[in-house]
């Protein structure tokens, strides 16, 4: 919301502070000022000049030579402006002065443009006559300015007077960020009230008198409100003999400064009152209102209605309509209808100032897809008491501006007002709550400034009707805090019993995951939680894959962000692809992020959010590098058993011969593998990519930070090497399982030290060699211990169709 400071000063005449001081103080008392613009920025040494004489330039067809009377003297100025005649009064910048911008109306340079005397095609020119754009404004705000040329004053001015003042540009436009709870501050009066309280100056509300011509408005119009829940008040007044004309300059300037383009006196008055009182108004041509009757009722499902922007809107039974005796003439609180639109031929105007249910307006505005200045204010829920003041103010302006004749009386249909809120005044509790020692009297003085009425007999504070946000003790405390000053409230730390800070186990494990991934050369990426359903095709998931059952966003930013991921790979593959595409070598990334598995489709409850530890890499390293990272991680989170790997992982996005489920104590905790070349193609990665995905919820029950020292072996170990020829189909995992199962208590370790296939080994077989270590904790092993264990292992291996080599 923007307002000129001069308009605020109109109601707080004693406000004398500078712009910056105003901005800071208002912000600290709760009316945040986002910034301000001085309208006279860079306008220096600009006076009113009267063109006494115009001659043609001897050497340039498009230039003229003007003798300009600037009060104390007459100076010569050469210009190319096409719109000037002798006798015109124009803003004239003198030698050494400054203007805000160029005549093309482009962006204003920070320091404006300095004007110096000089020669134009050989003729001396001692200044410049200014267009409205050069003065930093535009024709939107000064509609009387010519489309191309120098601004010519339409009003009476004197040569030599300050032209910037004459244009009303010695002002500052302040931009506020009004919070949604302070609907009263979406108005000049609301902000002026806050300014008065902030600077402890008196607030002068406008005196509204609009008696009218003595006729009775009830002879002109009747109002019936059928839905008093959605329309709590409807005020109507009538003005006749309307003369449409431009509104006076002061009103145009104020509206322009608020960013509202002046149109004509009638439209400007409704906009002016909306700005001033925060009450949107509407004006109907009474002659277009059938039966001179207003009925406020809901629309019917399927009705169509053409709003005054010419668009046909679909209605439903939740939308509130303003109707006449025959038809709908306005979409309540949002926009009037084309069928009752005011034209320049209007003779009699019906003013409407109403209070509608904010939530209903918001819903309707959303459903018809039309949000207007009015609906934006109505949807915050207005003070019904304000409507009458606003409509009377509009009628007063009609009279003052000579825009028409006001018919006496007000048609006022309203539900009973909500009672004013009363809140107990508890000064000790306020101090205890804020941590302050503010005197009771100081609090009362603050209430006084805010028009919060304190009744000493009952001990209650009554909030004025425009302060709908003041509801309870905490609100009263806030009023005290913000006018006492947030900065003056002390800073302390919470008392009470000391508490132990902690990071929960799950997050500690995730921290470990980050550490290990990084030690292993992986950097952390972050990926979106939502992605395109096309991802499932890119990952070659079959149509009936349960992973295609997703939590789906009903209003996504687009299909590419429409489903919550059920698999974490797309993020890491996309990131690897980005790096590959940018020719980054040897990239290793990891991510810790959730997948979202719906418990049912459609979703009716919280989905299962599963943290995934996802690793991906290309460049140096292979499947076993990735496997190593997985095992480092498991080892460091206290998972000491050996993980096992099942090659029948069934992951369509992985290379069929290079994938494995990772199992720990017979639980699947994740998978790893090489990305299927077709999937790599889908991501435009032309090299081998390896990934591992660990499902953290499955890992957590096995993880632990408990450690126990098991001693360092005192007795010597005995090693045996075995070398065998095994069918290719036998996995070393199977061999290791046998070694493990049969090695007995004395088995300490086993290491694969050679694996070979090719020459010297028969077709379909491979040669595998292990070094197996035995050790007892309490004695030196006997030869018989070792040979017994070895025999058991060898028997087991023979069962797999394995032949021992010499």
């Amino acid at each position, binding site marked *: 919301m923007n307002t000129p400071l001069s308009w605020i000063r109109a109601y707080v005449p004693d406000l004398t502070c500078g712009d910056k001081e105003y901005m800071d103080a208002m912000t*600290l008392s*709760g009316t945040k000022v986002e910034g301000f613009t001085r309208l006279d920025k860079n306008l220096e040494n600009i006076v009113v000049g009267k063109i006494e004489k115009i001659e043609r330039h001897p050497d340039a067809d498009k230039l003229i030579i003007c003798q300009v009377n600037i009060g104390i003297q007459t100076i010569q100025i050469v210009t190319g402006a096409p719109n000037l005649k002798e006798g015109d009064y124009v803003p004239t910048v003198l030698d050494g002065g400054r203007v805000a911008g160029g005549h093309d109306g482009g962006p204003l340079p920070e320091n404006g443009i300095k004007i110096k005397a000089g020669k134009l095609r050989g003729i001396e020119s001692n200044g410049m006559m200014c267009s409205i754009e050069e003065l930093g404004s535009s024709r939107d705000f000064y509609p009387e300015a010519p489309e191309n040329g120098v601004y010519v004053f339409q009003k009476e001015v004197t040569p030599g007077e300050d032209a910037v003042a004459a244009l009303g540009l010695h002002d500052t436009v302040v931009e506020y960020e009004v*919070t*949604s*709870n302070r609907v009263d501050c979406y108005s000049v009066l609301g902000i002026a009230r806050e300014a008065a309280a902030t600077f402890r100056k008196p607030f002068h509300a406008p005196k509204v008198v609009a008696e009218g011509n003595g006729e009775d408005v009830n002879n002109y119009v009747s109002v019936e409100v059928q839905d008093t829940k959605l329309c709590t008040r409807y005020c109507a007044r009538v003005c006749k003999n309307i003369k449409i004309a431009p509104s006076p300059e002061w009103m145009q300037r104020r509206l322009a400064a608020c960013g509202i383009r002046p149109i004509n006196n009638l439209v400007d008055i409704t906009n002016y009152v909306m700005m001033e009182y925060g009450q949107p108004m509407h004006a109907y041509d009474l002659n277009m209102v059938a039966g001179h009757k207003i009925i406020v009722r809901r629309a019917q499902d399927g009705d169509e209605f053409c709003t005054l922007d010419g668009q046909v809107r679909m209605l439903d039974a939740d939308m509130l309509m303003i109707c006449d005796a025959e038809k709908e003439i306005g979409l309540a609180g949002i926009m009037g209808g084309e069928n009752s639109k005011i034209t320049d031929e209007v003779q009699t105007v019906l003013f409407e100032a109403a209070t509608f249910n*904010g939530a209903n307006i*918001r819903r309707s505005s*959303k459903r018809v897809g039309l949000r207007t200045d009015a609906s934006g204010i109505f*949807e915050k829920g207005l003070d019904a008491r304000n409507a009458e003041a606003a409509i009377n103010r509009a009628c007063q302006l009609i009279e003052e501006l000579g825009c028409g004749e006001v018919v006496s009386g007000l048609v006022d249909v309203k539900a009973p007002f909500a009672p004013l809120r009363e809140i107990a005044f508890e000064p000790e509790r306020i101090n*205890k*709550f804020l*941590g*302050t020692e503010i005197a009771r009297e100081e609090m009362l003085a603050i209430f006084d400034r805010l028009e919060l009425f304190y009744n000493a007999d009952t001990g209650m504070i009554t909030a004025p009707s425009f302060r709908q946000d003041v509801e*309870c*003790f*905490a609100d009263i*405390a*806030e009023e005290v*805090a913000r006018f006492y000053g*947030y*900065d003056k*409230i002390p800073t*302390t*730390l*919470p*008392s*009470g019993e000391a508490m132990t*800070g*902690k990071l*929960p186990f*799950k*997050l500690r494990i995730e*921290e470990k995951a980050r550490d290990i991934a990084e*030690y*292993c*050369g*992986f*950097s*952390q*990426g*972050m990926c*979106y*939680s*939502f992605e395109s359903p096309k991802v499932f095709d890119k990952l070659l998931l079959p149509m009936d894959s349960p992973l295609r059952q997703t*939590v*789906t*966003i*009903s*209003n996504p*930013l687009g299909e590419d*962000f429409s489903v919550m991921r059920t698999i974490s790979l797309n993020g890491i593959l996309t990131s690897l692809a*980005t790096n590959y595409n*940018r020719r980054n070598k040897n990239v290793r*990334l990891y991510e810790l992020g*959730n997948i979202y598995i719906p418990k049912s489709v459609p*979703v*009716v409850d*919280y*989905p299962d*959010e599963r943290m995934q530890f996802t690793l991906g890499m290309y460049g140096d390293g292979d499947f076993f590098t990735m496997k190593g990272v997985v095992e480092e991680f498991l080892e460091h989170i206290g998972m000491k058993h050996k993980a096992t790997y099942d090659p029948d992982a069934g992951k369509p996005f992985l290379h069929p011969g290079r994938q494995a489920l990772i199992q720990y104590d017979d639980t699947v905790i994740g998978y790893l593998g090489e990305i299927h070349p077709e999937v790599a193609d889908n991501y435009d990665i032309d090299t081998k990519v390896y990934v591992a995905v660990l499902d953290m919820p499955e890992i957590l029950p096995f993880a632990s930070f408990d450690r126990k020292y098991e001693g360092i072996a005192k007795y010597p170990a005995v090693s045996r090497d075995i070398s065998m020829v095994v069918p290719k189909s036998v996995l070393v995992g199977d061999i290791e399982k046998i070694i493990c199962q049969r090695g007995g208590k004395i088995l300490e370790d086993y290491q694969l030290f050679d694996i070979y296939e090719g020459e010297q080994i028969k077709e379909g077989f491979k040669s595998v060699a292990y070094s197996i270590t035995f050790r007892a904790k309490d004695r030196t092993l006997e030869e018989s211990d070792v040979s017994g264990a070895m025999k058991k292992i060898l028997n087991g291996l023979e069962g797999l169709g394995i032949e021992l080599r010499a």
Partner: protein
Amino acid sequence: MKEKLEKIKAEAIRQISTSDALDKLNDVRVNFLGKKGELTAVLKSMKEVAPEDRPKVGQLVNEAREEIERVLEEARAGMEKKLREAKMKAEVIDVTLPAQKNNVGHRHPNTIALEEVERIFIGMGYEVVEGPEIEKDYYNFEALNIPADHPAKDEQDTFYVNADILLRTQTSGVQVHEMEKGRLPIRMIAPGRVFRADEVDATHSPSFHQIEGLVIDKNITFADLKGTLAEFAKELFGEDTKVKFRPHHFPFTEPSAEMDVSCFKCGGRGCRFCKGEGWIEILGCGMVHPKVLKMCNINPEEYTGFAFGVGLERIALLKYEIDDMRLLYENDIRFLKQF
């Protein structure tokens, strides 16, 4: 006898002094002190010495032996030292050759900032908790005093799954989950991912992170809120950081405030970084609204509390001077390696 010993000793020392290698020294040791060495031979001939002279001669032999051993040891040590020096001289390397690194990976700047924030609050006795990212309308809005039809609920801001389930737009819902557990007092922070329907650009992302804070106890004051967050700002941005609280409005706190910190680039004088303001807006906070407490079955007459919410990306972007939010989700290794 004595002369003989002196002669042997002198000969030994002479040979030692002319030895130029360790093996030659060893020869000297064997020749004089070994089993068949000259001194040993003298000892062996003791039986020829009169019994009364034997102790004396024995002593003389031992003295000669010790002396030879001492000189031998000295020579050996000197020689070894020289050898080692020569060896090291030959081992000179070019220390400016490139390092062999382990290529340790890098943490995401968001995580670095988050861990910093967590460290500060854990130190102040806060527990880190988590809540669901896909949330019910009740927790994201209603229980936070944002009733149906509140503008903040506008569909333009919130991603909905259906009328009741949505992607959380703020971590504030975790407050409600935590208060509902009924365990008081509470000191928690809840970091997490949140979602808003903003198109991606340099300063917006439809997915970002917040850190929610909540303290509920008897006698918690607005002054405690100020003190806690001032302490946090100092820890995060440096001891000289000043804070400023401005009144604001959040439906779930009353009174509410926004906190600015003095610009840590210019110290508050005003620079391009803080757009000349000298202050940078960092978080929103306030005293927990009595309505919110009541909805969580906490008696606002007995308990009070404060809450705050910090944008993690905002901190990361500010602290590390990252000028485009999109970089955070691109995962270009050249970006990540800088953290």
